[in-house]
């Protein structure tokens, strides 16, 4: 067996294969491939519309089944029955599918269960309505006592009137009581008597299918015509009208019969609900498993629809991308399948020669995956180009740590991350919400960020804004001084590791650390960019794109090194010279760099002998590089490529890749495409843009790295301010108040440290680090015109994730 390529530095080599599968075993083969997840199938039927393809019938059937399953699931949720979760280890073995009869069983079962459930649900809904109706009637009857009792009290003197007066009773949603009263008042010109009573419990409403709070009401008025109008108005406002009798005895008799009827309804409803729930419990146990099998089956048919169907020879022909080193595995598995199924005709795998651009596939593991995702968010690497995800593993957390440098905060972050890493298996099975999932999937990034922050915090000598005195200081204070006297330290050595703690709390400590952090960011930025720029050389050599080296890489490199490389060397040189001992003034580097451009040949303060000559030389080189960058590539194109119009692009070259992708979008044919011819104008414009961009970016990107300085300064200052404003206050107090305040202020300090300094500042530093990678680093070499490799593999199915 061939050893698998690691495919991290470059994407894996891919082959286009053609798969001849006999029709009888097509389903089994594709099912097995879905378990393995190694082939990305191409659509060979782009000209055939979706609903005209071979396996539309099957898919439609399964779609219907899935709809039924979703219906079951919604019923389960309504009745608060939990789905039985099955934890299956996702083993990537070549498995045989469940027999097609099993799927047919599923289809049959699905329809049967649906029918039964629908019947039960309808029955229970009907009963529910009946119950609600009866209950409302009962409430109205009960309320009748109150209605007539009150009217009796007010109008008992006029018996005649009460006889001629007729009334309407009913139940209405509570929200509409006011409306009803108002409308009736206007329509009848105040010629009515309206009363209402609140029902003690909300009642099931047929219209909204939920329980609604309602009121019973009674309207007294006279005249049949008016009564009809009242009824119409009330009904239009969703009221249910019930006729009740005026006399107390009849009402109580009615109530008696009503109660027996209600009792019957309750029993029937109870049995119906129990039956429904028993049925649902049975479904809940297997629904997840069924749904998984069915959705796998469906995806198999969706893939088979991409195949070419040769009806004469009864074979299906599929085409797809596979990592070249997986070819053997595929062939073995197919052979195994043929032998287990006992079919005479084997499936055949044939590797095709093609000039299509294969998809980009980086083999990641749980550690590298998150880092790769950072880069893939920006763009998928072109096939076989250097993968920026590899250096990102270190540079991303480290750049973050330069901004976040604090031992204490780094330790907090590292501890949380290591918890996530240690319990990753347990947490992986858990259902995670969005934010927690982000932290979980980036746990290794967090871990490295925390660890590197501890290291940079060590170098900044910051632990929650305090310094550690681990080594002997390089500075010595005078032997004695008066209180309040300004004193200066004398250098007696060099602090071996990190910033000297003698600077902590001094008046000019910030001055020193600012100068140090600024130069640190320029140096780190320059080195990071040069490192990234070297990858463009690696790419050019790999794709044998020699003109890119001569026309792009070398002039660019000289330009960049001539200006900022020189600055970096000067920074280091200035540090290494003892200016105080030599008694010379230390030249300002910023002015030196500005004067190098503004008045070449003039140097006011000398850093080293012959400085003027060197600077003029570098300036001339940088200036020569600009036209080189601009012209070499287009001219080369003009002299070589335009002679023969039909030029074939190199398989991996920029033009080849991009034009092929465009073509593939336009018409995805089986034939090998011809690359579209570029003309001189295109190349020239492209190069002009590239040149302007490169020269401007050299300056702006270097300046952009100054964010390392700014953020780390802000972080350190914020930490110091938080310390003085919270916990430091407690240190002067004694006694009970001292204890009390220490506890309170520590809690405050710790919570704010976690929330503001670790989470908020951490997020901001992470975004800045992300930008430094996407813009400053990746723009130096990354093309990002690839398409991702998405092999056909069975996905975990979940009811929530489905539309």
């Amino acid at each position: 067996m061939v050893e698998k390529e690691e495919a991290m530095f470059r994407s894996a080599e891919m082959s286009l294969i053609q798969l001849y599968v006999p029709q009888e075993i097509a389903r089994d083969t594709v099912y097995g491939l879905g378990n393995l997840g190694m082939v990305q199938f191409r659509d060979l039927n782009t000209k055939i519309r979706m609903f005209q393809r071979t396996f539309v019938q099957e898919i439609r059937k399964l779609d219907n089944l899935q709809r039924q399953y979703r219906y079951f699931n919604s019923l389960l949720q309504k009745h608060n029955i939990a789905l039985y979760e099955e934890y299956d280890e996702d083993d990537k073995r070549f498995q045989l599918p469940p027999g097609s009869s099993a799927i047919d069983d599923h289809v049959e079962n699905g329809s049967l269960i649906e029918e039964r459930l629908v019947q039960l649900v309808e029955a229970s809904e009907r009963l529910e309505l009946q119950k609600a109706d009866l209950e409302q009637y009962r409430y109205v009857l009960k309320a009748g006592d109150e209605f007539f009792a009150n009217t009796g009290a007010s109008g008992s003197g006029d018996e005649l009137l009460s006889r001629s007066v007729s009334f309407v009773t009913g139940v209405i949603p509570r929200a509409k009581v006011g409306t009803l009263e108002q409308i009736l008042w206007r329509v009848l010109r105040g010629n009515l008597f309206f009363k209402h009573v609140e029902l003690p419990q909300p009642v099931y409403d047929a219209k909204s299918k939920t329980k609604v709070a309602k009121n019973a009401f009674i309207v007294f008025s006279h005249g049949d015509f008016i009564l009809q109008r009242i009824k119409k108005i009330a009904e239009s406002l969703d009221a249910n009208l019930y006729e009740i009798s005026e006399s107390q005895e009849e009402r109580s008799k009615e109530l008696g019969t009503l109660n027996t009827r209600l009792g019957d309804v309750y029993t029937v409803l109870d049995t119906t609900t129990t039956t429904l729930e028993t049925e649902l419990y049975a479904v809940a146990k297997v629904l997840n498993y069924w749904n998984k099998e069915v959705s796998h089956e469906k995806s198999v048919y969706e893939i088979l629809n991409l195949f070419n169907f040769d009806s004469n020879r009864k074979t299906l022909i599929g085409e797809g991308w596979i990592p070249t080193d997986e070819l053997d595995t595929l062939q073995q598995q197919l052979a195994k399948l043929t032998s287990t199924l006992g079919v005479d005709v084997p499936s055949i795998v044939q590797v095709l020669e093609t000039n299509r651009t294969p998809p980009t596939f980086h083999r990641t593991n749980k550690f590298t995956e998150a880092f790769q995702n950072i880069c893939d968010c920006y763009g998928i690497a072109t096939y076989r180009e250097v993968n920026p995800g590899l250096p990102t593993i270190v540079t991303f957390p480290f750049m973050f740590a330069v901004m976040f440098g604090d031992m204490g905060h780094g330790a907090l972050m590292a501890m949380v991350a290591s918890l996530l890493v240690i319990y990753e298996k347990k947490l992986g099975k858990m259902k995670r919400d969005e934010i927690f999932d982000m932290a979980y999937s980036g746990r290794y990034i967090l871990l490295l960020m925390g660890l590197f922050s501890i290291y940079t915090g060590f170098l900044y000598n910051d632990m929650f804004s305090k310094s550690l005195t681990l080594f002997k200081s390089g500075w010595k204070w005078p032997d004695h001084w008066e209180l309040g006297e300004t004193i200066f330290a004398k250098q007696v050595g060099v602090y071996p590791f990190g910033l000297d703690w003698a600077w902590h709390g001094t008046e000019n400590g910030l001055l020193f650390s600012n100068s140090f952090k600024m130069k640190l960011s320029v140096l780190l930025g320059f080195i990071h960019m040069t490192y990234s720029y070297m990858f463009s050389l690696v790419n050019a050599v790999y794709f044998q794109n020699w003109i890119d080296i001569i026309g792009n890489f070398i002039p660019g490199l000289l330009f960049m090194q001539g200006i900022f490389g020189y600055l970096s060397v000067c920074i280091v040189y200035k540090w290494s010279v003892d200016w105080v001992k030599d008694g010379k003034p230390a030249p300002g580097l910023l002015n030196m760099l500005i004067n190098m451009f503004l008045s070449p040949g003039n140097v006011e303060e000398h850093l080293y002998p012959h400085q003027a000559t060197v600077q003029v030389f570098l300036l001339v080189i940088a200036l020569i590089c600009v036209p080189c960058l601009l012209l070499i590539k287009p001219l080369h194109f003009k002299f070589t490529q335009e002679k023969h119009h039909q030029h074939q692009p190199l398989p991996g070259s920029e033009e080849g890749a991009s034009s092929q992708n465009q073509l593939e979008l336009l018409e995805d044919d089986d034939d090998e495409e011809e690359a579209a011819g570029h003309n001189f104008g295109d190349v020239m414009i492209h190069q002009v843009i590239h040149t302007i961009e490169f020269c401007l970016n050299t300056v702006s990107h270097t300046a952009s790295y100054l964010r390392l300085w700014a953020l780390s300064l802000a972080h350190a200052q914020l930490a110091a301010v938080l310390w003085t404003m919270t916990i430091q206050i407690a240190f002067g107090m004694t006694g009970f108040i001292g204890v009390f305040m220490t506890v309170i202020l520590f809690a405050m300090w710790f919570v704010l440290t976690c929330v503001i300094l670790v989470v908020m500042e951490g997020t901001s530093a992470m975004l800045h680090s992300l930008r430094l990678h996407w813009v400053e680093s990746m723009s130096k070499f990354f093309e990002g015109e690839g398409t991702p490799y998405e092999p056909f593999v069975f996905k975990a199915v979940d009811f929530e994730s489905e539309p």
Partner: protein
Amino acid sequence: MSFYTVVAVLLVVALTSAVFWVFAPKQNQTVWRSTVILTLSMMYLMWAITYLSQLHPLVEPRRADLRPEFAE
């Protein structure tokens, strides 16, 4: 204690990296090599810059709030 310390540590780091390049674990070799060596170089760079910046400082610590008892 001078510029040569930085050079000496550079040599040590380079040697360590070279040794690790050879003895990197066989599984995920690229990731191991890249990650460890890049880590070493970044850590070295950061240390070297910090060290160099304090080698011949142009400003000295100044303060007026130190208590006289603190004198050694």
